[in-house]
């Protein structure tokens, strides 16, 4: 087709007698587009990507007023253009996309290339296998272009210039925090876990939070704090060991990460029977993103699970020839009993102690056990090595019988039953005929310090002059002293009487008698002071 505008030139050429054929002004613009550096095939959502769009005039004529229009579908950041261009931007749709138009006024010589470099930020995708497609660039000029297909991308009608496709990997950095309202639990208790999480981006996504309880625990209730609850939040798992909540994505198609923190509260029922010890609730967060979380994906919270049955041994240890046998028995006819034996040093810290038994490897500060119905267990401390003295506690799923048998070479053996938790106790004591009584006292306070007061009395119940003492104990700490060490200002010559122990905090105690002669070695249990309802007559 010959355009009308070219007629005057043709006529002029004919008048001048040119033999050459008539030629129209035309310029074939060729558009290319690629990433910088070329051929970037994948990137992380939220990252920056650069494109370079080039327009080359393949002639045969100069192109006048070359214009490039490019729709930057992602977050437009900046542009860099070859000299001579004037550019304008126009918002495109909703969000941060822009249509950029750059024009180089005047001629663009044959073989000359004009370019624009765009910098954009890839939006956080909502799912895997999404591609960032750049396919809406087109070039034109005021000069006739004989081949439009090579100056338009495939997204533009008739365009043949390939689109630039970059796969976007979605990823989110999740912040997850789990807290429990208690550090230790007993049978039938309830524990409330509060789970908070936040998406620090770059990608938005649907998210599933799973809170797996310790074995045997069950989900009693799941609550989503109302202020930030979304109507699409879905939770399940009540009555099971695992609470699962799914939180729908918020604004997945705009270039903004879902960043408002959310929360989930799980109330768990502790079962009536379990193996005492440390248990773990595992919380994990999962999204539909291609890549896993950049950092922490789960937080484990530990709780100490306590059985309903506790007994204690205020005196325990081994070494330097001395040894202790702990003998546990299961008085149940049909059910096994499981539990944990824990050993504590004088200051209440875990005591690492060696046992001679084959089933206890190396020094341990605790030992898990299971006793069959009408069965038992005997653990014997190593008598070699340095002396390690402390106390022991049994926490079991059901009642156990407990006895400690001490052995001091050349002195003898002495057995004593386990002691219960008390707030007050009375023990017979004496210092006569070469035999004197010692008291071992162990704090059963889980945290903090406590004071146990001791009152030395005659058998008539009258306090002995100088017969008052106080012992301060840290959490789980123990002490053992003979009565002449406890009551240094009291006259204990040929003394026989009792000691009353009292504390505002729980403790356990046992008495021990040691004499000058071989075999003068025994332990005596203390009697708890029982708070009684007063008889009306009294």
């Amino acid at each position, binding site marked *: 087709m010959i355009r009308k505008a070219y007629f005057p030139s043709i006529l002029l050429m004919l008048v001048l007698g040119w033999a050459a054929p008539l030629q129209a002004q035309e310029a074939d613009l060729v558009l290319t587009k690629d990433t910088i550096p070329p051929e970037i095939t994948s990137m992380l959502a939220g990252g920056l990507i650069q494109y370079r769009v080039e327009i080359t005039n393949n002639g045969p004529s100069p192109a006048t007023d070359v214009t490039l229009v490019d729709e930057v579908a992602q977050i437009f950041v900046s542009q860099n253009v070859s000299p001579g261009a004037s550019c304008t931007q126009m918002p495109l749709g909703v969000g941060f996309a822009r249509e950029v138009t750059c024009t180089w006024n005047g001629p663009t010589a044959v073989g000359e290339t004009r370019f624009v470099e765009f910098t954009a930020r890839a939006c956080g995708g909502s799912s895997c296998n999404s591609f960032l497609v750049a396919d809406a660039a087109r070039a034109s000029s005021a000069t006739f272009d004989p081949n439009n297909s090579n100056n338009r991308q495939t997204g533009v009608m008739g365009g043949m210039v390939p689109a630039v496709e970059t796969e976007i990997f979605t990823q989110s950095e999740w912040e997850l925090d789990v807290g429990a309202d208690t550090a230790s639990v007993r049978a039938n208790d309830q524990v409330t876990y509060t789970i908070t999480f936040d998406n620090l981006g770059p990608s938005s996504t649907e998210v599933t939070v799973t809170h797996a309880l310790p074995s045997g625990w069950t989900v009693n209730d799941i609550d989503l704090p109302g202020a930030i609850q979304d109507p699409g939040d879905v939770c399940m798992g009540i009555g099971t060991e695992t609470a699962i909540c799914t939180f729908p994505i918020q604004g997945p198609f705009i270039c903004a990460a879902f960043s408002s923190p959310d929360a989930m509260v799980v109330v768990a029922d502790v079962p009536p029977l379990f193996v005492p010890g440390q248990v773990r609730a595992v919380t994990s967060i999962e999204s539909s993103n291609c890549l896993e979380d950049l950092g922490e994906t789960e937080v484990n919270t530990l709780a100490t699970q306590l059985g309903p049955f506790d007994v204690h041994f205020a005196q325990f240890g081994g070494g330097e020839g001395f040894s202790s046998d702990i003998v546990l028995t299961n008085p149940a006819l*049909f059910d096994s009993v499981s539990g944990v034996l824990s050993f504590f040093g004088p200051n209440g810290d875990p005591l690492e102690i060696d046992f001679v038994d084959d089933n206890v490897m190396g020094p341990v500060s605790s030992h898990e056990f299971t006793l069959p119905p009408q069965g038992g267990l005997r653990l014997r401390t190593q008598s070699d090595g340095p002396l390690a003295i402390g106390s022991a506690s049994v926490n079991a799923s059901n*009642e156990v*019988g407990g006895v400690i048998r001490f052995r001091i070479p050349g002195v003898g053996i002495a057995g004593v039953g386990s002691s*219960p938790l008390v707030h007050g106790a009375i023990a*017979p004591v004496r210092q006569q005929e070469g035999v004197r009584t010692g008291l071992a006292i162990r704090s059963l306070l889980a945290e903090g310090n406590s004071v146990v007061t001791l009152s030395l009395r005659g*058998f008539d119940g009258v306090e002995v002059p100088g017969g008052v003492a106080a012992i301060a104990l840290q959490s789980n700490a123990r002490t053992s002293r003979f009565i002449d060490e406890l009551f240094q200002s009291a006259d204990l010559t040929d003394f026989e009487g009792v000691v009353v122990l009292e504390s505002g905090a729980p403790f356990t105690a046992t008495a021990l008698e040691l004499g000058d002669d071989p075999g003068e070695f025994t332990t*005596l249990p203390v009697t708890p002071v*029982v708070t*009684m*309802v007063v008889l009306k007559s009294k």
Partner: protein
Amino acid sequence: MLKIRRVLPLLLLLALPVAPDGLAQDQDQPRLGVIEQFERHFAQFGGGAGFSSDIVLTNPSNFFSATGTISFFDANGQALEIELADDGMEGPVSSVNFEIQPGGGLRLRTDSAGPLSLGSASLSSGSIVGGVVRFRIPGVGIAGVPAAPSVEGAIAPVRQQDGIRTGLAIRNLSEGNLVVTLTLFTFEGVEVAGGIAAQALQLNARSASFIDEIFDPLDLEGFEGVVVLEAEGPFAATALELGDDTGEFTTLPVTPLENVILLESQIKALANQIEK
């Protein structure tokens, strides 16, 4: 306002968990109890031939005196007349009445002179009393053991190894004759072949035997495990260990067997076991 009814106290006391020493177990909460009659027992007791026993009682109340009686029984359950070495005790006695001041105590010591008298002792009081027996065998040593509660089943650790063997003292607390069966188990809860015995006890009678005597003719050398004691009526028991060397002498409390409420499924399982 405190209103006390005397018809329930024993039931209330029985309903409380009982510790091996026979006293209500004090967990985190102070215990409330009403005492009609507090009874504890010493299945092993005696004196003479150099051997002596101290019975040491303590009153754990800070407000009220504890009054009661200690009675002594011989092996056949008859009243045991025994000499006490304490001041004010003249002639052999078969029982002693006592009153212990609040926060106070009492010690009774059998006379180690004269012929050996062995038996058991029972304590009866209108309030809770702590009780311990301390045995003394010259050249062997001393051993203390707490008073035992009344039980119808108990479990005790036993052994016969390294020259040490365990003995069991059992006292009939029923109102007639009583047969106590003893079954020997390993620590794994497996019954030892031939490890079953029975002891028939008259009213108030007691027995004291070592395990190799109880389970004769079993060879128990090197054995370590438990004995389960069961009866159709109440009894009290204690365990005692005696060795070849000086000082190898101690007593061990027994643990009451768990009161069992059988579920239907457990009854069926038990029936199946018996059937097999």
